């Protein structure tokens, strides 16, 4: 399977609303295995690793994708190889991959039931759009009286989508400006957050703004709960915000200053241009797309800001996440 094909199948799978990026990656790799001509385990693993790299390179935010790929490759490596022939083994592995993806769709319900015990008649703050949080809130609404504050989550505005869906279901809901979270935090009982990935340190990688909300919740002494399916657990360990694989050094750069200083130099003036306002500059306009392009998509929340991580394997403290990961991957 060529690079282009695997990329296409991945994009096609992503269109399915129910599939998150790690699951789509696992299914894309399964499809690749179906079409693979590998004759030995070693070849197969090499092909899978190459495919995972291709997918990762073509994505601006590869964290969830990486988590899914690594989980699948680890699973294949540890799978007992006592099948009669290699093609039988391959068929079995493909079946396992597809079965896993089907079971994984039920994980969200499991997590919703687990988190349900922590919800009383509360006001909940959530961020942006997360399917697992939505399912939890819809389930809680059936038996409890909850009200929800959703942040707008600029620049993509996914929070508005969440608010619309919740209001349609009859849950009292309102959209909060990203900058008004500190203002609203006192009205909230706890914070519920989805995740793109949960990392080895016990920290959370999620849409940009999550770290901010976590810091505010900590300062206001409100619990901060993260909801994550187990396939989102990743063995990465970021030391800081800028240590994420999605980190683009061009983010938050200063484009205007560079171009302003370049102009006097190119016009050959010998004197130092003290004022950057040369006569040939028109008033600069900054568009929303420029802002969106120049800002990060995800950020990293430290484990000491998170109270609990709810997952299909149970409710874990951030310290417990690493124990689970080490047991899963290093054993």
């Amino acid at each position: 399977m060529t690079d282009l094909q695997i990329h296409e199948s991945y994009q096609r799978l992503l269109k399915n609303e129910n599939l998150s990026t790690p699951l789509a990656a696992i299914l894309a790799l399964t499809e690749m295995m179906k079409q693979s001509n590998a004759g030995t385990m070693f070849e197969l693993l090499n092909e899978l690793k190459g495919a995972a790299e291709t997918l990762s390179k073509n994505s601006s935010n590869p964290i969830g994708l990486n988590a899914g790929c690594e989980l699948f490759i680890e699973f294949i490596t540890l799978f007992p190889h006592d099948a009669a022939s290699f093609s039988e083994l391959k068929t079995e592995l493909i079946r396992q991959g597809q079965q896993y993806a089907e079971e994984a769709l039920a994980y969200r319900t499991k997590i919703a039931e687990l988190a349900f015990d922590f919800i009383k008649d509360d006001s909940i703050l959530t961020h942006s759009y997360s399917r697992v949080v939505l399912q939890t809130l819809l389930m809680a609404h059936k038996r409890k009286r909850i009200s929800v504050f959703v942040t707008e989550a600029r620049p993509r505005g996914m929070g508005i989508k969440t608010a619309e869906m919740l209001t349609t279901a009859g849950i009292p809901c309102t959209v909060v400006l990203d900058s008004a979270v500190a203002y609203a935090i006192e009205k909230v009982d706890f914070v519920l957050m989805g995740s793109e990935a949960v990392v080895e340190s016990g920290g959370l990688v999620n849409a940009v703004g999550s770290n901010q909300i976590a810091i505010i919740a900590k300062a206001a002494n409100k619990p901060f709960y993260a909801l994550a399916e187990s396939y989102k657990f990743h063995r990465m360990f970021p030391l800081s915000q800028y240590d994420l694989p999605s980190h683009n050094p061009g983010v938050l750069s200063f484009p205007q200053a560079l171009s302003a200083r370049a102009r006097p130099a190119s016009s050959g003036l010998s004197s130092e241009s003290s004022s950057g306002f040369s006569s040939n500059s028109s008033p600069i306009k900054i568009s929303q797309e420029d802002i969106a392009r120049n800002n990060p998509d995800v950020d990293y929340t430290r484990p000491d800001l998170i109270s609990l991580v709810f997952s299909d394997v149970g409710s874990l403290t951030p310290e417990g996440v690493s124990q689970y990961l080490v047991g899963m991957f290093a054993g």
Partner: protein
Amino acid sequence: MRMPSLSAKPKNERKDERDRNNNEPRKLHRNNNSRVREYPALQDHPLPNRRAAASTSKDAPTNIRDGAGGPDGSSDSPKSRGLRIFSHFGLPKTPGHQIKGDIHPAIVKLGLQFSEFKICGANARCIATLTAFKTVIQDYVTPPHNTLSRHLMTHLSPQITHLVTARPMSVTMGNAIRQLKLEISGSDIDLPEQDAKDALCHKIDEYIRDRIIIADEVIEDLAVKKIKDGDVVLTYARSSLVEKILLRAHSLDKRFSVIVIDSRPLLEGKTLLHSLASTVPPLPCTYALLPALPSLIIDADIVLLGAHSLHANGSVYSRAGTAMVAMLAKEHSVPVMLCCETYKFSDTVMLDGFGKNELAPTKFSPEVPKSNSNLEALNPLYDSTPASCITAVVTEVGLIPPTSISSIPLALGRTTL
């Protein structure tokens, strides 16, 4: 000066005397001169003497007057009574201590090297100990009517004790010796003696290779990924592992600079500085002592530290000064990476640097002016860094948060560390 005739006093008054001894500071404040002479002054009487004075009050007059000389009544000028705090570690040993029992010459040599600090550092000491034990095992002859698996351990015990008297055992040595004892007790009785000895030496070589040498290489691979071009790496004193990591990153053509923080009395950072600056092309280094740290930490992007041992509650036992570096880095949001092999893990819990520590021998202390023998130099060699100050621990099983070391045996497929 009024001398109390304690022997003549009734019993309850003698008890009051003792009580007043204990409340001495209050008395001193109220009545200056006479009281100071009347009750044994703190600086004249070492602890055992004061107890002696209180309990044997019948002999009190002579004791109180020249109590400074010690229980044997010798009338020296007040001599140093040793350190009050940290005295539970025992005083630093002077070299040339006696050899008790039948100690192998390799162990004698090693003990001397330990006490002279010629071999310094957790890894170096462990490797040297195991290598010396290989010699001991090869020279060992099982006495008749005994089996190797049972007798060798009793043969090794006095050797180990000798090393411990030279310098307190490090956690690394302890773990290695425990593993060695396990191997010895598991060795096959039916094997001919030379084969059994060779098998043990082979196991020792494997231990050194797997858990130190190869583990170091894996840790280097993991740690160099966290050093990016343009980073400023800060490190403290000299960890053999951190040195290897920095040299490897440099050989991979990464462009970074290093700040080496050092402290007296051992000044181990100088050796690290020398080895880093001798690379081709030279690695840009800055060298400073610990008091300069607050100004330099602002420039650091990442802190790399080594450890002597890592404890079950996540606290790190390392060279004195490490805790300060870690705490200051945390205050300035600089990530702290601790590089530590898994064989350095200990089951014990360490809450502070006082329960377990070691004092540097007097040759490392600054010169104390003779006239003031009340001044003692205190040089603890180790301190304890709390787990909250460490961002990540790099081990051969990957990067883990410091609170998760209990999951490591599971990861390695063992039941114990």
